[in-house]
């Protein structure tokens, strides 16, 4: 359903952002107050600290249809809760390695330190990330070709490959 729509309209990435309450969310508010226009593709989920970010949230966002995930926290040393952002960095680092092995492009997950006063950085990061994900295209988590067989009754499965024909390469 939504796929059909998507194929008609140009691809607009959906990106979920997890912003910490004290720095990055405030910076996003500041960007708003200052009427800085940026790409409408990023939707913010507020958490109190980037340290609250459970890697499960990132995967859930991808599963639910996000094409990218952005994490925003206070600059190192500036965490409102002292060290939460370092925990975010550690988890992010390992999650990034995991996602790479899972075949998900690096640009789809991004961590940025944005201080409460950096409204301009919010704008820049929002625009940059939207462009980067747009370039990659949609994240396709749909079933593979041979998984579709599952949906059909066994009798209707059309099988044409024969042993002789599989001499590729």
């Amino acid at each position, binding site marked *: 359903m939504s796929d059909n729509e998507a194929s008609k309209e140009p691809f607009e990435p959906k990106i979920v952002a997890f912003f910490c309450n004290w720095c990055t969310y405030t910076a996003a508010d500041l960007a708003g107050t200052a009427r800085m226009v940026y790409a409408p593709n990023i939707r913010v989920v507020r958490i109190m600290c980037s340290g609250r970010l459970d890697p499960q949230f990132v995967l859930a966002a991808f599963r639910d249809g996000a094409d990218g995930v952005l994490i925003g926290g206070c600059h190192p040393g500036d965490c409102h809760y002292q060290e939460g952002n*370092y925990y975010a960095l550690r*988890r992010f680092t390992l999650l990034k390695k995991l996602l790479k092995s899972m075949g998900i492009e690096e640009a789809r997950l991004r961590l940025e330190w944005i201080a409460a006063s950096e409204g301009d950085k919010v704008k820049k990061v929002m625009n940059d990330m939207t462009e980067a994900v747009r370039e990659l295209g949609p994240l396709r988590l749909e079933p593979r070709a041979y998984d579709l067989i599952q949906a059909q009754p066994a009798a209707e499965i059309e099988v044409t490959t024969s042993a002789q024909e599989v001499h590729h390469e």
Partner: protein
Amino acid sequence: MSKPKVGFYWCASCGGCEEAVIDLAEDILPIVEAVDIVFWPVAMDFKRADVEALSDGELAVSFINGSVRSSEQYEMVGLLRAKSQLIVAFGSCAHLGGIPGLANMFDRKEMFEEIYLRLPSVNNDKRVMPAEEITVPEGKLTLPASWDTVKTLDQVIEVDYYLPGCPPPVDLIKEAVNAILSGELPPKGSVLAPDVALCEECPRRDSKPEELALKEFKRPHEIEIDPEKCLLAQGLLCLGPVTRKGCGASCVSVNMPCTGCMGPTGRVMDYGAKALSAIASSVDSKDEHEISAILDRIVDPVGTFYRYSLPASLLHRCYQQTASEDEGKEQ
């Protein structure tokens, strides 16, 4: 009054779960006494037609082990679902996808080529590949079709209960069977094991420090393991804190770190992500590059954190996005 009828079946699995039933030893006798096993291909000569001949819901319970990855398995579990009142996903593979689930790092084509053409021990000059149908002078022969993606049992049929473990611990099996026989069952969808992580029953628990401050991850063969001390504290990647208890900490008791076969506890949605979060939280560094270097010691994050649960993970499988990009270019 006739005894309740029971079925056993295996899908993509190693057979260890079947062994676990045998491991009940003499305790199997009262069970056999109490039930009527009407389908158990690994032990007795039953055919699919025997199951088809049963009426719907005639089986009190079917224990199915193994993950689902072929058309035959799909049809069989569908059939058993129709004939059974209860379905128990038996063991890690049926529960979470298990070791065979790691095949989700690839798709079917890659896997066939690896197995039938590239493996060093394979001698296949004619490059014969498995096919679903082949014509021979005598007529047509068919094989079940393999899927690209390995599924957990509950991704293809409705499952009533789960018995976790690779294989499920004997005590849990007994408790589960007794519960079924007595009808004292927890809510549908439950995992038939305690909902607490392994540390709780770990003999090394008291030696686990409050701060791990991991600077380096070690592998079991690299160090002389202290048999008393918490394995994480020794730098070994033990997944006990993330994994459901119920196995009696059998691996940890013999100096091997927990690899997570019992799966996550009830409130965890994605085992690997949670494990990753807990482990990364214990890394002792604030420097981006150092953190990366320390975590680089985990050479295979997917194999480490999703050893038994890749198909059950939120992402289910590996996605090679490059392939879809190519398609895009062709258009």
